[in-house]
């Protein structure tokens, strides 16, 4: 019997975008394994198991979907903290952004982002992009890293 599947951490401040994203993920039946937080600070709390998430039991997410433009702690900052931390630097991070601004893209890649998805205006394109994420996630679960105890 397979253990609990790894989860997806989804960081998005815009409720509308979040709804659309979750809707798209649901198309691939991935919505129920998604943990959604609404800003960077929460995302960090979640990962570091502090604040509201101090008692979080499940292990680290297989992938993090991270919006860039967020209040307080923005996506770039979250990314920077993750990639400089020995425990989290291996978790793949996918940047979600509405902008095609090169600056953002360059910053994200410099920090070691694993993928960069521009939220398309068209929803259908968006679902397609999300399905790629699903694939990404599936691959991560099929080849478990060493620290993964729950798979067996």
């Amino acid at each position: 019997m397979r253990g609990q599947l790894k989860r997806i951490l989804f960081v998005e401040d815009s409720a509308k975008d979040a709804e659309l994203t979750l809707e798209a993920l649901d198309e691939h039946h991935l919505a129920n394994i998604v943990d959604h937080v609404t800003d960077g600070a929460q995302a960090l709390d979640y990962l570091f198991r502090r604040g509201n998430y101090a008692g979080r039991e499940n292990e680290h997410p297989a992938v993090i979907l991270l919006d860039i433009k967020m209040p307080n702690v923005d996506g770039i900052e979250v990314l920077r903290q993750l990639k400089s931390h020995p425990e989290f630097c291996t978790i793949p991070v996918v940047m979600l952004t509405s902008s095609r601004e090169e600056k953002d893209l360059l910053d994200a890649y410099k920090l070691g982002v694993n993928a960069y998805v521009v939220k398309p205006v068209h929803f259908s394109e968006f679902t397609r992009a999300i399905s790629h994420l699903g694939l990404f996630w599936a691959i991560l679960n099929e080849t478990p890293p060493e620290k993964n105890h729950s798979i067996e």
Partner: protein
Amino acid sequence: MNTRFVMLCRIAAILTIVIAVTAFIGWIFDSPILTSLYTGYIPMAPNTSVSFFLLGIALMVFCSTSLNSVRIFRTAAQGSVLLVCTAATFTSAEHLSIINRSIDSLVFLFTTDHYNIPGAGKMSFFTAAIFFCAAAALFLLSLRHRQELYEQISFTISNIVWSMGAVFFISYLIGAPIFYGTSSIPPSLNTSIAFIILGAGITGLALKQENARLKNNSISVDKIIYTGFSLALVAVLTISIISYQYTLRSVGAGTSLIRSYKGLEYLESLISNEKDSQTAVRGYVITRQKNFLEPLYASEYSTPQILESIRLLYVDDSVQIASLRDAEIIIRRHHTLLHNEIDLRRSVDSDISTFASYSRKEKMTMDSLRATINRMMTHAQLHLEQETVNRRDRIAASVSINIALITGVLLVFSVIFAFIRRDLTGRKEAEERLRQLNNDLEFRVHERTKMLQSSEERHRSTLDNMLEGCQIIGFDYRYIYLNPIAAQHGRSSQEQLIGKTMMEAYPGIDQTPMFAALQQCMTRRTHLQLENEFNYPDGSSGWFNLSLEPVPEGVFIISADITQQKKLKSEVLSYQEHLEEMVKERTKKIEELQRQFQTLFESVPGSYLILKPDLTIVGASEAYLTASMTKRDEIVGRHLFDVFPDNPDDPAADGVRNLHESLKRVLKTGVSDTMAIQKYDVRNPETGKFEVHYWSPVNSPVFSKEKKIEFIIHRVEEVTDFVLRKNIGDPERDDDPQVHAKLESMEIEIFQRTQELKKLSLDLQHANRELESFSYSVSHDLRAPLRHINGFIELFQKNAADGLNEKGRRYLSIIADSANQMGQLIDDLLVFSRMGRTEMARTMVQLHEQIDAVIQSLAAETAGRNITWKIAPLPQISADPAMMRVVLVNLLSNAVKYTRTRDHAVIEIGHDRDSSRHVFFVRDNGVGFDMQYKNKLFGVFQRLHSDSQFEGTGIGLANVQRIIHRHGGETWAEGIVNEGAIFYFSLPVTQEGQSS
């Protein structure tokens, strides 16, 4: 060793001659002792002695080198040898009864009475045969050809000669020569001895000659073996003779034994006869019957016979003969008695008693007879016993001698065998060694050959593969060797040249300097090197660098083709000349130009001084010279401040310091420095005194290509008058308020303007920053609501559109389209704004490749369309590739878009250029446009067609224009409604563009 053989020969010859002469003298003086050495022995025949003499002389001649070399002696010796040979042949023939005895002649000169031997004085057959052998051997040795064979034969024959002599000699020693008593007489004793000596001499001669021929000094093994065999032959023959002798003697001993037994038998029968006679007489006396007397008569008949037999038997035994006479007398007396008794009985009838005396007498006679016979018998018995012992002894002696001789023969054979074996082993070993040596040698020869071959091959292949031509010319000027390159140099082939002389191959070559050099090398054997022009038979020629080297075979020539080099060299030379000329011309021109420029510069109206960064003066304009009261020659090349020092009389002079500081600033910053008006006094060369001068200097740098300051231009304006005047119009004095006011106002204006500019610049920066943040937020924030609208509309369409009617659904789709359109607008606008801000990254752009890629990316739009693309050859340009791609995408997609209504669209991309710019154009046969709106084409959001006709945001061409402007180019368009449009853009020709 050789001298010993010679000595042997000489001694043998002399002894032979002595023996022969002795025998001959013996014949002459009729002395058997000289002819036969021993009375009763066979004498040496006169012929034999003559033959020995001749052969002895011949041997003497042959063994003496000095005598033998005299032809007459040698021929004479050969003649005598042949004479002996002939005589021997004839004698043999006589003996064999082939011819009549007439040749054995010399005997008639002498008497043979002393020799109680038949045939004495005649040469025996054996002697003749041995002479033949000896003569033949000597003759063969005297021959001068095939010496090896003849020596071998002579040696063998001479061995036979002396061994036969030895055999005869030994047979004499033993007692009787063989064949003695047979029909043939054996050779005499001295002949035998002479044969031994002569044979030894000839053997010695043979060995001497062989050694002389082989320049050897030893006896070869086979010679020893031969001699050994001869000795063995002698021994075997001796044994045979001895056996023969003893057998003969044993036979003699046997007869004497038989004789002894017979004697005893006779003696006994003599006694029994007498007894019988007595008994018969006694019977007659008693009976008077006559028939009793028979035995008496029988005995009287047989007894004389027996007596005779006994006498014969003991004829050589005097004792027995004497006894026998006694016995005879007694027997006669006895018989007389017996007959008296018979007569008595017959005549008178006497008394028996009378006979008693007779009986007594008879008995006495018988007793004495018996005693005699007994004596004889005892003697015979004794003799017999002695004879038996003798015979046994003799047989024993014979056997032991035989054993001894056979042992000797065996010993000889063992020695021979040992020799043979040693020789064979030696030979075998030698052969083995030889074989090994041979193998070794063969191997070494093979190795060596291989080595030589490989070395030869290596050399050859090295030569063959050399890039220089190699050839070996023999002393007869024949080509011995050429490598392919050499053949190539000669425009011939190896096969054609090798073996030919140079003159044959290249007629007339013997008149060339090269041939002279070759001759010199051949004769003087020195290395030579020369460059030679070789004239080919076809009239053309080539230049070769030749290196001549004397080698054992002749001369080795290495040739290198330098025709090309020569040609190049001459070309280079002519080029050089040309170049020099050109340089001269150019230099002249440049000098001219320089002069012109200098003149120009020097006559420029302003006052200019040119300085190097180290502040030495390089040049000055005439105006400057006039103003500074100097002459060009005096200042050029000198340091600025040497020429223009401060006025030593003016303690406040700061000209040098200020000017120096200004110049330093220029050197440091690379920016022109305008100095404030400066008092700088100048010395008047005429008076030698400094005059007060005011200057307004500007120092500007002149950069080299490497962006380093090469010169400083020091421009001055003489403002002495102005300053002096101003000073005169001092505020205190206020002489010229007009001027003052003017200056004031000018300064104020300048200040205001500067302030304005600064503000504008700040404003601009601020605006730019705002624009950036604006477009950034536009890109994020403006798109977000649009995305939401779109997303939720789609969700709505998917989940809830069924509840809508036709109209509702249409509204929904319009909302969605509008949102999409707005998203597109925003994106384009962002691109447009980015185009103005992003930095350009110029590289060389292959327009062709970009066009191909763009056309491919338009596949969705061109699908199902009939479009002909005409793309002219396009140059490579220096541009930002991403931006150029935006330009091409816009222009080509426009062309595709606006030809949509055409069945057959033709889109042409072309290029043109003039000296300063490339002009590219995209021509289509689409809907075109009205030329009166051409200015609107490139504006933002400017569209000439409705959205329903041709969709679009109106930003594409604006982008194109912006990009081309940024590249330093222009855009424009031409169009005719419904016929088509041409969109042009130009790009300046850059250096890289030119080079392409």
